C-alpha cells in the first residue's frame, strides 16, 4: 500500500533563488523562496513540485520547469543549479539529484540553460529545438524502412560497437552547451558524428554528415570549442571530449576531399 510507509527521514531547510521570466520577450528576474521541512530523501525535482503546490495555493504562478522520465534518460530536465549544469553530482541529470546532496539552509540558485541558441520560453524552460536541426542536417544513416541484409551479415568488432555506444548514450539535454563558456554544441554534435563514423552502417554518407552537421551547428549560433572540457565534466552521460577530436578529424577529412566537393557539394546547404 502506498500509504503505509512511516518515514524517519530527516528534513532540511531549503533556500532557493530562482530565475523567473514570463515569456521570451520579457526581462527576467530572480525571486527567492524558502521551504522548511524538506525531506532529504526527496529528489530535487520533487522539492520543486512541492514548491509549486505551495505557490499555487498562495495564488502565485508556479515555476515552470521541464522534466519527463525522471530517471535520467529522456534528456528533458535541464537546470543550472548554483552554477553547475544538472547540479553538483557528476554523471547525473537534475532529475537524479537528491536533496541529501545539499546542506540545510544553503542558498541554491536555479537558472535555465544560458545560451543564445536556447532562448528562454518561460522561467526555467528553454527552447532546445536547435539540437533537432543539427540532427536533421545529417545525424542518421541513409537506411530506409524495408528489407535489409541480415543483421549479422556485417560483423562489427565489439570494441568499435562499444565505443559507438559510449557516444550514442548522449541524451540531448544541452548541459554541454550550458556548461561551456562559449555555449558550444560540439560535444552533442560530435557524439552523433562519432557514433556513425565508428560503425560501418554510417560510412556511405560519412563526409556529408560531418560537413552538414558542423555547418548547422555554426548556423544555430553555438560557439566554437576551445578545449575547456567543461562539457565533459557537466555531461550526465560522461560523453568524452575525445568525440570532439574525432569530429574535427571527420570534418577535416571531408573538407579536403576533392571527390566530395565535386560530387555532392552541398555541404553549405
Amino acid at each position, binding site marked *: *500500500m*502506498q500509504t503505509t*510507509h*512511516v518515514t524517519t*527521514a530527516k528534513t532540511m531547510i531549503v533556500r532557493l533563488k530562482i530565475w523567473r521570466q514570463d*515569456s521570451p520577450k520579457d526581462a527576467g528576474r530572480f525571486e527567492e523562496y524558502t521551504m522548511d521541512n524538506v*525531506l532529504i530523501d*526527496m529528489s530535487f*525535482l*520533487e522539492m520543486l*513540485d512541492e514548491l509549486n*503546490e505551495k505557490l*499555487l495555493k498562495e495564488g502565485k*504562478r*508556479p515555476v*515552470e520547469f*521541464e522534466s*519527463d*522520465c*525522471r*530517471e535520467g*534518460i*529522456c*534528456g*528533458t530536465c535541464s537546470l543550472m543549479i548554483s552554477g553547475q549544469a544538472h547540479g553538483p553530482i557528476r554523471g*547525473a541529470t537534475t532529475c*537524479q539529484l*537528491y536533496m*541529501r546532496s545539499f546542506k540545510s539552509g544553503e542558498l541554491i540558485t536555479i537558472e535555465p540553460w544560458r545560451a543564445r541558441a536556447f532562448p528562454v*520560453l*518561460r522561467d526555467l524552460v528553454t*527552447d532546445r*529545438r536547435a539540437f*533537432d536541426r543539427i*540532427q536533421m542536417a545529417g545525424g*542518421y*544513416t541513409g537506411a*530506409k*524502412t*524495408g*528489407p*535489409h*541484409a*541480415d*543483421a*549479422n551479415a*556485417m*560483423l*562489427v*568488432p*565489439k570494441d568499435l*560497437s*562499444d565505443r*559507438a*555506444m559510449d557516444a*550514442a548514450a548522449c*541524451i540531448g539535454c544541452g548541459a554541454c552547451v550550458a556548461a561551456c563558456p562559449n555555449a558550444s554544441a560540439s560535444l552533442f554534435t560530435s557524439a552523433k558524428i562519432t557514433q556513425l563514423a565508428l*560503425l560501418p*552502417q*554510417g560510412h556511405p554518407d560519412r563526409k556529408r554528415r560531418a560537413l552538414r552537421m558542423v555547418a548547422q551547428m555554426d548556423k544555430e549560433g553555438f560557439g566554437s570549442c576551445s578545449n575547456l572540457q567543461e562539457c565533459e565534466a557537466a555531461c550526465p552521460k560522461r560523453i568524452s571530449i575525445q568525440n570532439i577530436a574525432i569530429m574535427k578529424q571527420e570534418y577535416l577529412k571531408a573538407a579536403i576531399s576533392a571527390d566530395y566537393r565535386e560530387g555532392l557539394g552541398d555541404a553549405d546547404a
Partner: protein
Amino acid sequence: MSFELKSGVPEGPLAQKWDKYKADMKLVNPANKRKYTVIVVGTGLAGGSAAASLAELGYNVKSFCIHDSARRAHSIAAQGGINAAKAYPNDGDSVWRLFYDTIKGGDYRSREANVYRLAQNSTSIIDQCVSQGVPFAREYSGELANRSFGGAQVSRTFYARGQTGQQLLLGAYSQLMKEVDKGKVQLFPYHELLDVVMVDGKCRGIITREINTGKVERHAADVVIMATGGYGRVYYLSTNAMNANATAIWRAHRRGAAFGNPCYVQIHPTCIPVSGTHQAKLTLMSESLRNDGRVWVPKKKEDLAKAPSTIPEEDRDYFLERKYPSFGNLVPRDVASRNAKDVCDEGRGVGASGRAVYLDFSAAIKRDGESVVREKYGNLFDMYHEITAENPYKSPMRIYPAVHYTMGGLWVDYSLQTTLPGLFAAGEANFSDHGANRLGASALMQGLSDGYFILPYTITNYLGTHATELLKKVETSHPAFEQAEKQVRDEIARLIANGKKGKRTPNEIFKELGLVTWDYVGMARDDKGLKIAIEKIAKLQHEYDNNMLLNDDQHLNTALQTAQRLGDYLELARLIAQDALHRTESCGGHFRVESQQDGEAKRDDEHFAYAAAWEYKGKGQDAILHKEQLVFENVKPSTRSYK
C-alpha cells in the same frame, strides 16, 4: 455512435495471413501519394517509426508530440531489450515459438493472427535497426549478442546495454529527422492532442493545444494515427514518465473509438519501492536483472531486521525458484509481482515499509566477477545507488512491483484501425498484441512492428480503398472542426473559471486517485473493492468538477495540463474498474481474488475468451460492452504453467 467489431483477419493458414493481406491490399500510385496527408500523433517507437516510414513512401506527414523534441517519448526509458525470433544462439527459437510464448504469456487473451504477424516482423526489426546504426551489444566475434527475458526459455532478446529503448528510439528519431530535412515530415513539437475531428464518418483531423504558447489549433488530414502510449499514470505512481498521459486515446474514445480491455494493466515486479508521499514517479529496475539476480525474502520474520548478508542461505526463501523450478526467477511479470505481494502480505517483506523483496546479485558477482556484472547492468546499479544511497554491489537491491505498462488501449482491427474509420492506433496506445499480460522486451518489438512494418501497408490500403472520398480535401474551416475547437476551448475556460474558487490542487486530487486505483484496482481485485473504487472515483470526480484550484493562465502552464489530463484519468479509472468488475475471471495482469485455484490465477475460457471493447456513453455513465470473441485455431488455451 455505435459500431460493429470486425477483426478483419484474412482467411487462410496462420503463417500466410499477413502475406495474403499484402497481396490483396489496395495500392496508391506514387503521384497520388503526394496528395495525401497523414497525421501521426506521438513520436515514441511506434509513432516515430510510422511517421518516418510513411514519409519515405511519399505521403505528407505531420508529426505531433508533446515534448520539445521527437527524441524524448517514454519509449526512451525502456531498458532491457527487444525480442526477435532470429534464433542466432541456435537454442530452438523460431517465429512459431515467439508467437507461442507471446500468446501464452498473454494468458490467451490476444488475437492469434496479430501475434503471429508480430513474431514474423520481429526479425526484420533487428535488421532495420542495425542498418540505422543502432549499437546493439555484440560478441567478440562481431556478431550480435542475446540474453533471455521473463516468460521464455530461449535467448532472443537483443539489447544495447541497459538503454535499448533509448537506442531504438534514437534510431527511429534519426530516420524521422532525415525525412524532416527532406521536407516530407512537418514536425509539431509541444503540441498536445485534445480532440479528433470526424467528417462524414471519417477521421479527418485533430485539435491541438500548443503547450508553450497555449494556442489552440486545427489540423486536417486524410488519415490519423495515434501512437500516444499507455495510461499507467492513472495510478499516479508508476514507472511512466511525468508527461505520459491518456488524453489522446480518451478523447478518441469519447468520440466513439472503442476502448479495449482497460483492466489489463501490467504491474512490473522489479521497481524501487515507494519511500514516501512526496514521490512523483517510481523507477524501474530492468527485468534483465532477473537473469542474474535472485529474488528472496527471509523465511523467518525475526530475520527481517537483520542485514541480508548475515542471513544464512538455509534461512532464505527464494520463493520464485521454489515455486516455479523450470522458469525460476524468469517467470512472467504478473506471476513474479503477485508472488512478491503474497510474501509481503504474509509479513515477510523487507525494508522500512515491509513492502519489498530482495534482488540479490551476490551469486552472480561470485560466479562472474564484479566487472562482468558491471558491464551488463552498470547503469542500473548506478541508478539504484543514486536513488536509494545504497550500493547494490555490496548488498541486495530492494524491489517491489509498480504499475508499468497497459496492455489495454484503443480497440483495433487487424489493420490497426480503431472503430472510428480513418483513426488508427499503434504501440501501447492500442490493445492488440499482448492479451492480458505482456512479456518483457515485447513492447519495443510491438511498437516498431506497428510503425515500420504494419502501418505503411494498412494506411496505404485505407487510402487506396477510400481514394474517391479522401481525394476531396476537407478544410479546417469545416463546421466539424469549428465545433470540436469550440468544445476544447470551452473545456479549458470552464477549468479555469472553476479553478478560481477551488481549494485543492490538481496534484492533490491526482494523488488521491492514485491511491484508490492502486488499492482497489491494482494487483488483486475483488467485487467489493471494485465497487468501492467506483464510488470513490465518483467522489473525486465531484471534487474535480467543483473544488479544484487552478491559476488563471492559458500560456505555458503545467498545472493546467495536469488538470486536463486528470479529467480524462478520472473517467478512464472508472472504466478500468467497470471492466475489472465485469471480468470475474483471473487472467494475466488482471487477478480477481475470487478466481483462483491452489494459489494460482484461474482463467475462465468458457465465459471470458473475448476482448472487451467498451463504448462511451457519457461522463459518469456506464459504458456499453461489446465482445470480440477470440478464436484459437492454432494454439489450445491451457492453464498457464511456469512450474
